């Protein structure tokens, strides 16, 4: 941690890229302020408890990382710091309850499905619940789509150009199984054979993000095993969720010094976002008779900032005939969803959500696409609040449709 702290020269370039700084305008809620607070805590000149509200308010969006000329590894610093502090801290009861619900349900599709159904019952008594729990219920969808079981092997259509393994994920399989369907259809249409190991589960990123390192490792270990059992060579491990991709790229760090370190690094090396993989492979030409579409693209933080993936999705969308791609004029600030952030910091999350929705509306787009399920509900909710019911889609959904 000292390396990351020492490389910060306090220049302030990160301030412009920080969503909480842009909302609150306070030094403590900026990357350089947080680094300074962490430094004081680690050096023993400040109590961890005092600094914690400011560390908790960090979205972990990584917007500051590409903005930092000095190359501060803020993500590594934050993850390590949170893991260290989390093992030592006590939380207020309500926080603990919320957190427990997140830890015990989100990573497990069957439990999450059950919880979401219970959440519908909870809505009946929402009025008398504390804000935090009430906020959680707002995010429970009115209706869950029926579960979809994908086969273990989806053959390539036409000439076989590549063979990949696919991480189906956890929350996404419950909330939007159609994204996974679109992903395999798109890959298959592009001559890619897709293998889906049965025993895979949540990649653990969401837990690692909130400082639950031990639990995250257990889940990650399970996936290392699940993907190791695939017969034959694969060209990549594909994910369509930005949060999972960025977390899995950090498996090497997660298992640093453990027996799994080498295997974890090899795994991380194979992980590719679907858009990166397809952009490198090159799309099979799309049918020419496409409708006219004005599409806004929203950069998910864990794709754009954490993985530096900004061009590939745009390249793919630009390859769709008659599609006009529109850019948001908001400096790429986080939409406020950020994993479990909209549950933990509802007020700031709401302000960021409003700004994002406004920036989307300002482009004059008819629909908005993005590469992360995490942003969907947040963007949809805030567009709806403005009375704008724009379709919100995953990049792969639009592309898969275009092949039909």
């Amino acid at each position, binding site marked *: 941690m000292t390396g990351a702290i020492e490389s910060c020269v306090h220049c302030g370039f990160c301030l412009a890229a920080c969503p909480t700084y842009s909302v609150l305008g306070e*030094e403590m809620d900026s990357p350089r302020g947080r680094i300074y607070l962490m430094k004081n805590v680690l050096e023993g000149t400040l109590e961890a408890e005092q600094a914690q509200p400011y560390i908790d308010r960090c979205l972990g969006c990584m917007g500051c990382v590409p903005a930092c000329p000095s190359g501060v590894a803020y993500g590594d610093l934050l993850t390590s710091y949170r893991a260290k502090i989390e093992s030592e801290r006590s939380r207020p009861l309500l926080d603990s309850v919320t957190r427990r619900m997140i830890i015990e349900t989100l990573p497990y599709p069957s439990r999450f499905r059950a919880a979401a159904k219970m959440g519908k019952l909870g809505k009946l008594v929402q009025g008398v619940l504390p804000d935090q729990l009430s906020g959680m219920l707002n995010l429970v969808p009115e209706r869950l789509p029926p579960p979809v079981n994908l086969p273990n092997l989806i053959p390539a259509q036409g000439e076989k150009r590549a063979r990949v393994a696919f991480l189906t994920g956890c929350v996404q399989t419950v909330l939007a199984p159609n994204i996974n369907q679109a992903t395999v259809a798109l890959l298959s249409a592009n001559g890619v054979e897709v293998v889906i190991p049965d025993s895979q589960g949540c990649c653990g990123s969401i837990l690692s993000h909130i400082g639950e390192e031990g639990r995250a490792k257990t889940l990650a270990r399970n996936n290392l095993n699940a993907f190791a059992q695939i017969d034959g060579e694969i060209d990549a491990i594909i994910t369509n969720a930005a949060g999972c991709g960025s977390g899995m790229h950090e498996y090497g760090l997660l298992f640093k010094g453990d027996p799994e370190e080498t295997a974890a690094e090899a795994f991380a090396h194979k992980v590719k976002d679907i858009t990166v993989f397809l952009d490198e492979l090159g799309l099979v030409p799309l049918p020419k008779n496409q409708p006219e579409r004005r599409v806004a693209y929203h950069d998910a933080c864990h794709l754009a900032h954490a993985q530096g993936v900004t061009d590939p999705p745009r390249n793919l969308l630009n390859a769709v005939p008659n599609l006009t791609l529109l850019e948001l004029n908001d400096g790429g600030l986080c939409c406020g969803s950020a994993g479990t952030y909209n549950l933990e910091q509802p007020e700031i999350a709401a302000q960021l959500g409003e700004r994002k929705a406004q920036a989307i509306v300002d482009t004059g787009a008819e629909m908005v696409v993005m590469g992360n399920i995490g942003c969907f509900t947040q963007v949809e909710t805030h567009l709806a609040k403005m009375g704008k019911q724009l379709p919100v889609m995953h990049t792969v959904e639009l592309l898969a449709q275009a092949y039909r």
Partner: protein
Amino acid sequence: MNTESFYQQLQEICPGRRTLTRDVDLLPYESDALVAFSTKPAAVVLPESAEEVVAIVKVCYAAGVPFVARGSGTSLSGGSMPIKDGVVIALNRLNAIKHIDPEQRTAVVEPGVVNLHISNAVKQYGLYYAPDPSSQSICTIGGNVAFNSGGAHCLKYGMTSNHVLGLKVVLPDGEIVEFGSESLEGMGVGPDLIGLFVGSEGLFGIALEITVRLLPIPEQYKTVLAGYDTLEKAGDAVSAVVASGLLPGAMEIMDRLALKAAEAAVKTGYPEGAAAVLIVELEGESQQVEREFEHLVNVIEGSGAFEIQVAQNEAHRAKIWKGRKGAFSSVGRLSPDYIVQDGVVPRSQLGKALAEIEKVSNSYGLQVANVFHAGDGNLHPLILYNGREQGALEHAEALAGEILAICIKLGGTLTGEHGIGIEKRDYMPQLFSETDLDAMYAIRNRIDDKGIANPGKKLPGGEAPALKMHGMHPLEKAGIISRE
């Protein structure tokens, strides 16, 4: 002073979480972008209107408590560093662009508006705000006014003072005054009070409203990179370009060490193996730029460059500038700490100054990275050191002092754009005579009789006063200056 009632008054003006007094909230305000100096303030207040700022200043004046205004805290001279036991007035929430007049090409903005946000807001009219400090994506216009900030393109267009038409200011005693006017025509009547205020480093009060002048966005840019095998050749090329009659938008030099840091940060593809790279940017109407470009290439070819690159497109140009503008901070990749100097030499002395700096740094055994606004002779040597080593900071500061002495000796000055702040304050007597300094004090004491507006900055003289300053100035006491 009754401390309790003072805080209470601040609380009444900025209630709740807008008056900060706990350690955890004050620590992050301890220093700005100059981390070698830090002081914890007594309080940080976050006003949301000009009226609140005025009320805070009045309360401070009545109690004799010093204050400093702060924007994004990007000062490289410690200008926005807190005063011990004083108040930090953080102006970030005064960030409204109040009025844009595309025909007059002016905008009226609050002090907390970020420099680049002005250009973003007026882009739709084909206009922009010209002064471009490297921190323009985050530094605020209030700070630009206080420090008369410059930037790469100030070679052609001038510094902040050339772009401020009007000011509404609260003086240290709470009085509100207005300088200049909202139009170009209003200039030139009476003394240039804007010239007095811009660059006064917070000693004369706080700007509440700033009328800036806007320029039409150039039709075309042409950005040229030239690689040289010695730093001196690059320095001499600058004089050759100007002597040939060209006035580029910007002329910048980065040396080997600075290039290494910038390349690590942005992967621009600066000419490989260069001891120095000269960046020249031509801008204006397309026809003119094309003709100037031919001329420029001839001059550069004749100056001994071993490689010439031209920015291929807007993205490439943006990358070249990102590398240049982030160069200071990227040096954080090479060294845990550094001091940035900001001395100026006459353009004709550039080559000589660089050679002397190299000689003296070698004798100190310290690495110095050079990245600077070559066109106006504004040097930015970055002295690399490790603050964890005993005495390293003092050693680096001693070298910084020698570099400034070189600049003064060659007919230059202490600062081009970062300001004197806390950092170069004690070098002022090397540049100014007792009479000069005396005059500066006389003006300051007339405007700020209690010495509460950012005391301890800019003007030399011992410790920053903790609460109030009466009687003889410390320099007078020390016999350095006199009023006789």
